[in-house]
């Protein structure tokens, strides 16, 4: 536990990727099996523990701290596990040093659910504050220490002098604590057999197009597609099985059974955008969000929010790896394959024809239909490359919309902004029917987009104009206009105003503008995405 805690602690503050990689590699080389395998699991897919982590932590803390102080602390720290680590009271009697990592995991794996809380409390009693934090990160899922699953796998690959892609190709056939993986890297065993499980292949990602990119692009060398506002996925199908992977390689198959059925018996690895499509029109992103992170899906959800896959690309077809082919040729494979197999619930992301970039820019400006975020530009000659290679694929997002809203409520931020009122709820004016009375209705909430100086000024304004305080929230006199930028507005039954903004962020603080000149609800309604025809 001690070595793991020290490593995780340093990782969390080591800024450079190379520094992190060196720390991780050193730990994975030195730590014994199965400790290092469990550590690797924590940094990648999570430990295979079924513990009610949140519930246990809140029970343990309820018996040890005041709920109001816990809540204030949690809001400040921005992370529950870290808050518990900091607040955990030292036991009255001196405790022995903490157990080995493998011991704790074994104990938790073999325990009944009712025993989990007591095991966790005993370990916490035996730890220092840094060890408590590391232990809770270990068993609590995503440790958020700035180490991606890919970086952790890269560290493993370093042990064996391999490239990370070698690890990724076999990864989905492996299970924690990954003893055979370390044995392979250290040269004691053969490469693990990935078998028939359809494995995730790292996706190719795009860069935002910048002014400096345009001179290097020629219209005839570039294909354009609409950028769809869904979830980027990879469908990996083989005779044995079908998996749907998120862009980070998370297996999200259970949430989308209809996509799995659509690819049953097909032998292909395809890249596409997962959408909810209702009566031929792309539904608001929220509908798709509702279906994510579900272990099982109700038939009502399947009926009301049917999934659809809009295909971009093929990586494998009939067992053949075509990633090295240029985009143009892969596209031809995609079209031919789709015409022949026609899996249900799929279509192709159409290429947008254009002769000049000026013409394309007009199309881009006009793109206001639901589900379109902008354009994608792909070099016809580029192979399918893992990661985010420079100069091949570009995303050209449509410009944000802006509205002038009035600040209504403020809350202290979490984590790094916890001492300042940085979470802001804002509204617009609504005229009630049959009268001239106007009231503010909240339309959104945003956290980001300030400089430190602005935050400080804003904080001062909020303190000076607080009308009411409830818990961490302050109601603020309706005086300050915020120019809010957002990507789209969608109807919502969950908001009192009846609308929801997508990706709102504060664009500017309009210290100069009187609040009664802020926008009205009607102005927002006019921006609601109409479903594409």
């Amino acid at each position, binding site marked *: 536990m001690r070595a793991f805690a020290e490593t995780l602690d340093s990782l969390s503050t080591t800024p450079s990727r190379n520094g992190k990689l060196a720390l991780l590699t050193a730990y994975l080389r030195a730590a014994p099996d199965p400790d290092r395998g469990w550590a690797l699991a924590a940094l990648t897919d999570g430990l295979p523990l079924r513990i009610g982590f949140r519930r246990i932590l809140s029970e343990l803390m309820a018996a040890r701290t*005041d709920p109001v*102080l816990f809540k*204030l602390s949690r809001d400040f720290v921005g992370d529950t596990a870290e808050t518990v680590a900091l607040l955990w009271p030292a036991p009255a009697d001196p405790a022995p040093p903490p157990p080995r990592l493998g011991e704790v995991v074994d104990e938790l794996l073999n325990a009944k659910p009712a025993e989990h809380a007591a095991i966790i409390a005993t370990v916490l009693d035996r730890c220092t504050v840094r060890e408590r934090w590391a232990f809770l990160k270990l068993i609590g899922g995503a440790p958020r220490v700035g180490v991606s699953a890919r970086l952790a796998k890269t560290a493993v690959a370093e042990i064996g002098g391999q490239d990370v892609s070698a690890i990724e190709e076999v990864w989905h056939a492996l299970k924690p604590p990954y003893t055979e993986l370390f044995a392979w890297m250290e040269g004691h065993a053969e490469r693990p057999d990935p078998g028939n499980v359809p494995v995730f292949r790292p996706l190719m990602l795009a860069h935002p197009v910048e002014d400096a990119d345009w001179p290097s692009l020629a219209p005839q060398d570039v294909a354009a597609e609409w950028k769809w506002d869904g979830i980027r996925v990879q469908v990996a199908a083989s005779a044995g099985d079908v998996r749907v992977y998120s862009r980070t390689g998370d297996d999200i198959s259970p949430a989308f059974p209809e996509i799995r059925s659509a690819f049953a018996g097909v032998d292909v690895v395809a890249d596409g955008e997962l959408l909810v499509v209702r009566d031929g029109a792309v539904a608001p992103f929220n509908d798709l969000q509702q279906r994510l992170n579900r272990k099982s899906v109700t038939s009502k959800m399947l009926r009301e929010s049917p999934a659809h896959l809009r295909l971009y690309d093929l990586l494998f077809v009939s067992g053949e790896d075509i990633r090295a082919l240029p985009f143009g040729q892969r596209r031809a494979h995609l079209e031919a394959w789709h015409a022949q197999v026609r899996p249900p619930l799929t279509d192709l992301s159409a290429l947008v024809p254009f002769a000049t970039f000026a013409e394309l820019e007009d199309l881009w400006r006009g793109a206001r239909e639901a589900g379109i975020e902008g354009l994608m530009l792909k070099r016809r000659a580029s192979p399918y490359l893992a990661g985010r290679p420079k100069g091949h694929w570009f995303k050209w997002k449509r410009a944000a919309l802006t509205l002038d809203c009035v600040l209504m409520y403020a809350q202290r931020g979490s*984590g790094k902004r*916890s001492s*300042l009122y940085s979470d802001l709820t804002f509204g617009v004016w609504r005229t009630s029917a049959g009268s001239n009375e106007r009231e503010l209705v909240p339309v959104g909430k945003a956290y980001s987009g300030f400089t430190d100086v602005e935050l400080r000024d804003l904080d001062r304004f909020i*303190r000076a104009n607080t009308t009411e305080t409830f818990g961490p929230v302050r109601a603020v006199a309706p005086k300050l206009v915020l120019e809010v930028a957002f990507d789209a507005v969608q109807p919502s039954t969950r908001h009192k105003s009846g609308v929801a903004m997508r990706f709102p962020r504060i664009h500017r603080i309009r210290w100069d503008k009187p609040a009664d000149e802020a926008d009205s609800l009607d102005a927002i309604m006019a921006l609601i995405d109409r479903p594409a025809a």
Partner: protein
Amino acid sequence: MRPVETWLYPASLGLYCEPGNFYIDPPRPVVRALITHGHSDHARSGHTHVLATSETIDIMKVRYGANCAGDFQAADLGHAQSINGVTVRFVPAGHILGSAQIVLEHNGRRAVVSGDYKRAADPTCRPFEVVTCDVFVTEATFALPVFRHERADSEARRLIQSIARNPDRTHLLGVYGLGKCQRMIALLRAEGYDVPIWLHGALVGLTALYQNLGIDLGDCRPASAAADAELRGALVMCPPSALMDRWSRRMGEDPVRVFASGWMRVRGRARQRGVELPLIVSDHADWPELLDTIVETGAEDVWVTHGRDDALVHQLSLMGRRARALALVGYEDDAE
């Protein structure tokens, strides 16, 4: 006996003592100001008459110039004087050099305005003295139960160990220029770090003042005078704002960025600043120190000036004490 709130209360210019006709640490210029300590949110320029400890007056003059107030009067620690019938006494606060609590007595009631304070040992200033009182006016910078500072000497040793482990990298230590800077130097010296310490220009003046006032800080030199090669493997101190800016590029490709502050208890804060080695050293009371101090003063009433007033007021009500937030403007909740 008049309750304290009838003669000491927050007015528009700051915390005001009505019969004495003076303000304590006012954020705006006033005719008569009593100053607890030299930090810029407590000591401002432009007052007509200033009463403060002689060290605080020296600090104000270094920061704002010799004419930053109409006139200065030095208060002797522990010595009582009367201002328009209000008895006033300055007592050590343990926060930084010259820092004082201001004890006020009027009509048989006693209030202690503590300014900023800490209870942990500090080789650069006199320790906090408990004064029993009816009303204790306290800061709450670190008033959340997550804040338990580490022992400052062991944090200084962690820095020395990191310097020894990374002989090719410059260690760049971010500190507030008044108090934390000189305390860290004194702690490092006490742990045996006796090679030159290099200072960013913004830290030179106040460090020289500490040395002139008799605090031994060893060999401190301006970083601007160093040859680049001298900074490899050395310790360079700078204000927090310089940790990531252009100036820090002189420190080689990959300096170890260190920050000594109570905020470093929370990882998000360290990550926000790109700090690789967070040292949890504070010149403010942590949660247990705040609660212990309040209990020791025996105050029935606790007024909270700045910081996490919500948590402290709540905890004191759980402990059966009257507590309220003064909601004074102009103090930095975050400065350390």
